């Protein structure tokens, strides 16, 4: 029987440890894809709260609309996707 090998974890060169907090990631995502600030066609900008923006994003992605940054929402934000904003500008 082989003995379990104790893994040694190393930091690989060039690996940038992204310490971006989940909230920062979410804010960046919500802004990038149009949920956070809806630039309206009349020329006015209306700021949307994070909870509301999250709800919009959750609805778009078919997730439970909690308005909170829960795990399914974070996972969806980390999935590969198209770069076109979801909320048209």
């Amino acid at each position, binding site marked *: 029987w082989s003995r379990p090998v104790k*893994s*040694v*974890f*190393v930091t*690989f*060169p*060039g690996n940038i440890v992204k310490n971006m907090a989940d909230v920062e990631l979410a804010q960046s995502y919500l802004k990038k*894809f149009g949920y956070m600030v*809806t*630039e*309206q*066609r*009349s*020329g*006015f900008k*209306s700021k949307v709260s994070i909870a509301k923006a999250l709800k*919009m994003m959750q*609805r*778009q*992605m*078919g997730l439970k609309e909690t308005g909170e940054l829960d795990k399914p929402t974070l996972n*969806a934000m980390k*999935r*590969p*996707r*198209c*770069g*076109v904003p*979801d*909320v*048209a500008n």
Partner: protein
Amino acid sequence: YSIYGGVHKWDHNDITYRILNYSPDMDSKLIDDAFARALRVWSDVTPLTFTRLLQGEADIMISFGTGDHGDAFPFDGKRGLLAHAFRPGVGILGDAHFDDDEYWTLGKGNVVKTYAGNAGGAICHFPFTFGAKSYTTCITEGVNNSIPWCATTADYDKDKKYGACPTELLFTFDGNANGARCVYPFIFHGRMYKSCTTDGRIDGKRWCATTSNYDTDKRFGFCPKRDTAVIGGNSEGDACHFPFVFQGKEYHSCTSEGRTDGKLWCGTTDSYDRDQKFGFCPNDGYSLFLVAAHEFGHSLGLDHSNIREALMFPLHSYVEDLSLDQDDIDGIQYLYGNKTGLSPTLNATKKPNLTRSSVVTVSPTVDPTKDPCKIHKFDTITVIQRHLHFFKDGQFWKVSNKTDVGRTGPFSISQSWPALPAVIDSAFEDVQTKRIYFFSGNRFWVYTGSSVLGPHSIEKLGLPPSVQKVEGALYRGKSKVFLFSGENFWRFNLKTQMIDKGYPKYTEASFGGVPNDAHDVFQHKGNIYFCRDLFYWRLNSGRQVDHTGNVKYDLLKCP
């Protein structure tokens, strides 16, 4: 489905496209084929045709780029954003860009086209057996010229079908050497190179000289990506070096040792401990065909859908056999019609039958005490039989859509539509069938001429129980109606008599610039009106607020 604000579509059906450059991940012929098949996804269900241009300006210009690639939407390296495209129009509009930091395949790992050999340029078959051993990459076993090869069937020993794999020892691409092979060693800036290099370039592309001295001859080409090339790490494009040493131990294949993320990696020199050179082992990659089909949907005028199964859903997932979701088909056919060229919604030639009245004609019950110009808020405003109808407390007034002069009324709701209550929240006319739908609270009625069905619960239409009333209705095309309530709206399908999948949507996300507490929504003379009290926000055909005004003075023609 969603389309861009207003209708942005090509004004011609013979769309042209041009491929400006290629990814080194796949052979150019495979890329050509992936794009052609992706366009065919849409031409199969519409009257659109796609013609490839080799030069000049095409409607859809296709290119690969990395990071900041010249538009306002930079890519973000590996994973994350895969591609983007612009809605139809001139210039950059219509164009599709693909992130070349991604590993582009057909979704199932390496796609390696062969050269020379006896397989006619077929794709490598991985795994294949050779000498009773199984291989999942191109190999140099059995040859004496270092050119990697693969079998193009599962069993080389039986079928003897093979071809050479892409290697700079056979050819280069782009550059200025007409595809000549690399010459090793070569001199660049006085230094000798024995392999492709990224030195001297800021885009990270691997290149080589095609003569023995770049400094004097200036001839070069880019190196084709070998199927064993690593992705990312600090040795992009180099091949794994097996065996390699890591933490004093020898590895003969990719490993996840030393990593917390489980990614498979390898050393690209014989000792990671000494050189610290590594990269990630090739994975399945992203299907260029699937991503391109999605992007071309944008290029044709579709926005993101919120149906998970739809091709136009914004998140990428691999499917073996793509078939468009009905939502995608509905969307693209809304814009361009079906294969026979008949558009279900645009350019409809069928006119409403004006000879058959669905409204029971009654004489105006003139009541001088009921002056609509003194009303501060109407129960609902809608268009029925080309007349704007203003409903309030059991009565209504009409203003002709056509003549736009004067108004008639008040008329009694109970005389015109006896089954209805005094307060109507919303109404619309199905111009195809002449049926008129009335909503009050959580109930609705359907009038056809003088016959009526209802009341029914609005839940029967598929609206959730939380909807207390329908506050606005917007007839869209032949068979769809947007129903508004609160800050949401739903799309009601008149054919199926049900709410479509993917709803509700936020009103403000689709109709920018209007109040989210509007209580009347209707279409009048090609514009959309959202009303709050006596004020209205008018959206033009491009869904842009182009005017705000007063219902009384502008629509009701009050003095």
